């Protein structure tokens, strides 16, 4: 039982990371139709932005986090300009390969800058443990779950209670009509990319202390976020969250109760089963690309 609480906490914390990555992926997909295969590299860049500000520059915690997120916002804007704008009218496959290609560039630039040696990333809760009647759980994991909950709430408020969020949803529904209504579509799309990059950056900053900062961490995270997106429902924000938590829990509980070697098969197996039998995912959205 004690073990179970520990595993559940770790699973939820890991699931939070996947959920935030999947959210970044989904807001870009719903607004622009881009299937961003560099989504995992976004998280990696977030982690290393934290390494740069907190470790290399030695800035204090809040300043370092804010600095890293500003870097992420700029990164999102740059990605919008260099990758999204030139590829926006291309077929899906070209976009997939284009984002993979730029992902290779991002990964190798990180490798050149930071080297292949994994970095430890500090957390404000380093070394702090919470004792729950005999079960010791890491304070960082709890903080990650709480912070993710707060972020999801803030995102919901942004999307439903602010003018910019409502405008973003209008763009996601119908770009032409949004433009006819006088919305500045290009600015809103740029903001979407920035928001996605910042969400991925937060995921990266929270993941850093859980794993090590490693330039190869992008792809495994992206694959899990894709599985989360499909399981939850492609294009659905609640789906991305539910899917993220499912994949995180499946990974941690699967490693402990089923097989540590095959733990990742659970997420991908469930993803393929969902694609075959319920391609709209848990939170069914309208499906166009299905025969």
């Amino acid at each position, binding site marked *: 039982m004690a073990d179970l609480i520990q595993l559940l906490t770790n699973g939820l914390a890991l699931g939070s990371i996947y959920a935030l990555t999947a959210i970044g992926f989904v807001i870009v997909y719903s607004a622009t139709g881009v*299937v961003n*295969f560099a989504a995992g590299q976004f998280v990696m860049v977030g982690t290393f932005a934290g390494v740069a500000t907190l470790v290399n520059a030695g800035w204090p915690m809040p300043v370092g986090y804010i600095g890293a997120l500003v870097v992420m916002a700029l990164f999102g804007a740059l990605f919008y300009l*260099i*990758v999204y704008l*030139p*590829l926006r009218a*291309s077929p*899906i*496959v*070209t976009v*997939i*390969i*284009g984002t*993979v*290609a*730029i*992902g*290779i*560039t*991002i990964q*190798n*630039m990180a490798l*050149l800058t930071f080297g292949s040696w994994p970095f430890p990333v500090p957390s404000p809760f380093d070394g702090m443990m919470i004792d729950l009647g005999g079960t010791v759980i890491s304070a960082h994991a709890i903080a990650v779950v709480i912070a993710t909950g707060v972020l999801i709430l803030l995102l919901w408020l942004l999307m439903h209670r602010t003018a910019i969020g409502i405008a973003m949803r209008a763009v996601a529904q119908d770009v032409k009509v949004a433009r006819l209504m006088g919305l500045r579509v290009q600015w809103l799309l740029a903001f979407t990319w920035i928001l996605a990059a910042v969400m991925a950056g937060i995921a990266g900053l929270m993941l850093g202390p859980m794993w090590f900062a490693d330039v190869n961490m992008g*792809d495994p995270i992206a*694959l899990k976020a*894709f*599985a989360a997106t*499909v399981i939850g429902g*492609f294009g659905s924000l609640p789906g991305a969250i539910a899917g993220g938590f499912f994949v995180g829990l499946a990974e941690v509980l699967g490693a402990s109760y089923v097989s540590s*070697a*095959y733990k*990742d*098969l659970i997420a*991908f*197996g469930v*993803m*393929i089963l969902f*694609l*075959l039998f319920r*391609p709209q995912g848990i939170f069914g959205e309208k499906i166009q*690309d*299905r*025969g």
Partner: protein
Amino acid sequence: MALRLLGLVGLLVVGFALSLSVSEYALRLLNLAAIAGISVIGLNFAFGYVGLISLGHAAFMGLGAYILAILTTQAGWSPWLASVPAILGTGLCAAAIGFPLLRLKGHYLALATLGLNVSFVIVAANWIELTGGTNGIAKIPGLSIAGYALSGEQPFLWFALVILACLGFVASLIQSSRHGRAMMAVRDDETAAAMTGINVTAIKVAAFALSALYAAVAGCLFATHVNFVSPDDFGFAQSITFLSMLIVGGEGTIVGAILGATLLTFLPEWLRVLGDSYLAFFGLMMLGILIFLPTGIIGLFDRWRRRAPAPETAAAEVAQP
């Protein structure tokens, strides 16, 4: 038909001339390019003709390579004999997977096949008794013809070129047959294709299985040439590389598949002069190619041809009112 035979002979002549004139290192790359070429011609059936986005092509190549590796090293089969179940087994496996999976389209199919490829690598890396885990399988015997071992880079290249030319030729026959036209009809408009009596599911599954057959041939060549297979060789990144080769060469064309496979095999090596940052440049160059040459090298040729029509065709147009 004459043009096709000309292409076949041209490929063999160019390949043979190169095999006599380039360095050992370039020969090795040419071998890898020929193997990738076979695999990409296969992918062209699924993606180029039918429009199925497969991000799992490397898994089929890996399945073929692993079946051959296991049968030769553990059961002591000859590589020639082992290649038969390797190729046919992979094709059957693709048909069995394709039947339920190919109802999906677009990025759904892309992610499903990606999931399959990732699952394949997990199984190959962890089923240690059978696959050797991440250490892979070493000491796979090489091919030999009538007692003559195809062990060096040069003899193997001749053999690989003959296979590439033959399979390219077969692919071009399929392309212009009614089955090839049915595939393209399904790509262009599934409903209209079904209306004309084409069995859409059968065509999709057939193209997918055919693509896996070609991938398995490439996998067998890879295993017998490198004499070693490991899960790293068949990851989803390799699948994306195959798709990039097809797009960079020109989707829907066999010549494009071969050109793309050759170019993307050599490009990273050419960029090595840039030092440590060569992969970063490679990514940017790929993005540039996708932005500025969306229809690939073949599309570039087509554009040139249209801009400057050859004198004979211009004359012919004048002659026929």
